[in-house]
């Protein structure tokens, strides 16, 4: 009786696993999308800075990191998949850009840094997508 119940419980567990295993990884370019959104904000930053609009550039820097990179869980995914060290390095690039805007760095310097960071983001997002990392796990964790 007890064994039968145990068996039914295990079968039930297996059923849940099977039922829900299929649809999760349908989207293959989720992280690429998040990366492009982040890059769009970085591009806004670059252009605002070039135009001398410090306020908009600062806002774009905040949006890139807090509005997209962190909120959309790209940061969490990187931390988990590519390690703490790499993620800290990427995050510090966001911080560098923020500081460059505040300190009035040259447009070329800012553009160069934006390109660097964009390349890294695209590369990392492609890696996450290729590995089939689902976005959901980071939403509840």
């Amino acid at each position, binding site marked *: 009786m007890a064994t039968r119940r*145990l068996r039914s419980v295990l079968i039930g567990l297996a059923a849940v696993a099977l039922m829900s295993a299929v649809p999760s990884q349908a989207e293959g370019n989720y992280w690429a999308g998040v990366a492009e959104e982040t890059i769009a904000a970085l591009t806004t930053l670059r252009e605002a800075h070039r135009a001398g609009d410090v306020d908009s550039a600062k806002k774009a820097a905040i949006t890139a990191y807090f509005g997209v990179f962190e909120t959309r869980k790209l940061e969490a995914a990187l931390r988990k998949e590519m390690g703490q060290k790499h993620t800290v390095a990427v995050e510090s690039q966001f911080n560098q850009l923020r500081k460059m805007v505040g300190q009035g760095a040259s447009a070329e310097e800012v553009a160069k840094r934006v390109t660097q960071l964009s390349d890294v983001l695209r590369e990392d997002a492609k890696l996450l997508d290729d590995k089939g990392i689902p976005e959901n796990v980071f939403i509840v964790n």
Partner: protein
Amino acid sequence: MRRLAALVLVLVALLPAPVSAAPDFAATIDAIVARGDGLVDAYAPAAGTDTADAFSGLYFDDFEASGLEADIGARDSAAKIDIEGRFAKVIGQSMNGATPALVQAAWKELRTALELRKAGYAEAGSTSAAFIQSFLILIREGFEAILVISALAAYLRRSGNEDKMRYLHQGILWALVASGLTAWAMASLFTLTAIAREVVEGVTMLFAAGVLLYVSTWLFAKREAQKWQSYVKAQVDRAVSGGKAFALGLAVFLAVYREGAETVLFYQALAIGQPGHMPAQVAGFAAACVGLAVIYWLMRTASLKIPLKPFFAGTAVLLYALAVAFVGQGILELQEARWLPVTPLHGVPQVPLLGLFPTLETLGAQLLVLLPALVAGVVMVFNRRSTDAPQGTAR
């Protein structure tokens, strides 16, 4: 119990020597709070971007660069995400030029969340902090295991099967050995440590849940005191026969092994993170052993005072509840390892101790495990009513 404590002490003694000084996170939090207070006091909606930018600076240069963020994440990932979210809120509101009252309120939330963490770092690096942290690790990780051990030991004692206690002792000892080996393997062999650890923990938890369910349903079937007394009186000491005794040993093994490797790794991290506090850490560990022994003793004393029938029923329910919690925790581990998908459910709270997580998969699996119990409960009530009625009229 004594052997258990001795073995774990040996495991702790084998931990590598401390290497670096621990940063003073309490001071970091004080600094963030002081600067945040100043920024919010000076906040003006028209210059909101500057405040947002300054808070970004606090986030990157203080919260993150000091290692505080990583440290909070290592201890409690939910707390880290919570604090990050609160930073984002303060920054978002000031960037959008929200009213000072709103920014003030958002900052208060963030400040409280940070100050709560500070309590955990109370005199960070001090002897008392080392003691408390070391104490809490073992109490937290060992609590569920000691519940399983106490319940099963009490069961063996009450059912006249004390001679089978050796199965429990063996289960504990093997689990400690296996935990030590697994921790060592995780630290030195695997490259994908995080995923491997989650898979090992997830599979162990689900396996543990299965064995606990088995033991629980079997105990519940034995709850009729009369049945037991006749069993014991009739000298049917094969009541706990080889296979079932093995199941008990396995239940204990899994309950201890489940968090065992993680506990060893926590202590390793503690020894590295707080060098020079080895005596306090060992004392905290020893105090936690005493704490767990007290829980064991309380359960034992209480169990001897409870009449047989509720005792068996209660033990069965306790094990069942632990199994349900283990199922939730195990599924979550497999989700983290990406073996299972994640479907978030909004509005469901997160209570890790009960294995309650806001995902369809964890809750679905727990519901499946609960369902037979609910059905059995309804059937039982129904049966009792239908059998009680004729007895009532006969009297």
